[in-house]
């Protein structure tokens, strides 16, 4: 395999195309930003604090989860533990991109990771499984998702009542359905299906019996370990 040069991996045309590719998903993200803005004001944050959080943290699930912890006083350790546990999946997601990212100079390599989130990573990861190196989606897709998240939060703190109940319209399932469609769009061999089964069962077991927010890491590592132990026949290994 020829090493792709940095300019092939990230050029403005591709970044723009990937920005537009994730625009439909970003429109749904706006709705969630609105829901977050509304919820954070109800939890006692000011408008600017909620917006600052969306701008700098840019990780919806962890932002929602910590809202329950805000009050007159905030316990720092549980707060940091929840944020870390929910976002620890980024560690594995970043590691999975490493074979592509190592081709970039360090500044760009770590720079685009500021925008790493589930949706743009899922696209990059599935493109890679299908033989295409696509880091432009991390930057372009990440940018449109970040803009949508921030814009949604701004709307939410201002006119949150408009979307008080996104579940009613099925909008809470956007990310789940999107991620599922990315998985199913990838390679499906008996080996992969068994890895998915083990990952899914481990995740559910962790969800039931291990501390909260650990299930993604447990499922991902279980699938990864099985993949490590079980060599693919076609590539000889």
């Amino acid at each position, binding site marked *: 395999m020829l090493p792709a040069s940095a300019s092939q991996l990230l050029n403005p045309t591709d970044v723009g195309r990937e920005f537009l590719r994730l625009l439909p998903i970003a429109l749904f993200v706006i709705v969630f930003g609105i829901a977050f803005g509304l919820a954070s004001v109800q939890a006692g944050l000011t408008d600017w604090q909620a917006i600052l*959080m969306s701008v*700098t*943290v840019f990780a919806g699930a962890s932002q929602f989860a910590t809202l329950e912890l805000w009050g007159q006083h905030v316990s720092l350790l549980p707060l940091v533990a929840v944020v870390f546990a929910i976002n620890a999946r980024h560690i594995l997601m970043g590691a999975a991109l490493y074979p592509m990212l190592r081709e970039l100079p360090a500044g760009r390599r770590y720079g685009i990771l500021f925008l790493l989130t589930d949706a743009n990573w899922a696209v990059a990861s599935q493109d890679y499984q299908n033989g295409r190196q696509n880091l432009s989606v991390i930057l372009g897709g990440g940018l449109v998702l970040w803009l949508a998240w921030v814009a949604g939060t701004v709307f939410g703190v201002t006119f949150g009542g408009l979307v008080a109940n996104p579940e009613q319209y099925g909008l809470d399932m956007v990310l789940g359905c999107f991620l*599922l469609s990315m998985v199913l769009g990838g390679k499906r061999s008996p080996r992969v299906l068994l890895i998915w089964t083990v990952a899914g069962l481990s995740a559910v077991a962790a969800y039931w019996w291990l501390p909260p927010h650990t*299930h993604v890491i447990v499922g991902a590592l279980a699938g990864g370990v099985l993949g490590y132990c079980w060599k693919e026949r076609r590539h000889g290994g």
Partner: protein
Amino acid sequence: MAVETTPFAVIAIIILMALVTLATRLGGVFAMSFVRIRPGVERFINAMASSVLIAVVVPMAVSGDAGARAALGATTAVMLLVGRPMPAITAGLVTAASVRYLVGA
């Protein structure tokens, strides 16, 4: 350690959350820069990559309501039949909204 939520403290806590999150975004790549990518490591990464998504979605179905399960089922069905994400996601959302409308009515 409990901190009183003065305006300054809130900003400091938000910045702390941002730094923890940023550490997770950069940490995996930083750690991998010390690992030689042998075939075993590559198999681990590839299997883990799709397992992350499965580990997010499957508990969502198990712990979710009928609408959530129907949505993921519809997305799976359309994805296997048509193979394109947008129709699959649309089917999922419409199904979730319909099931919740019917159950709630």
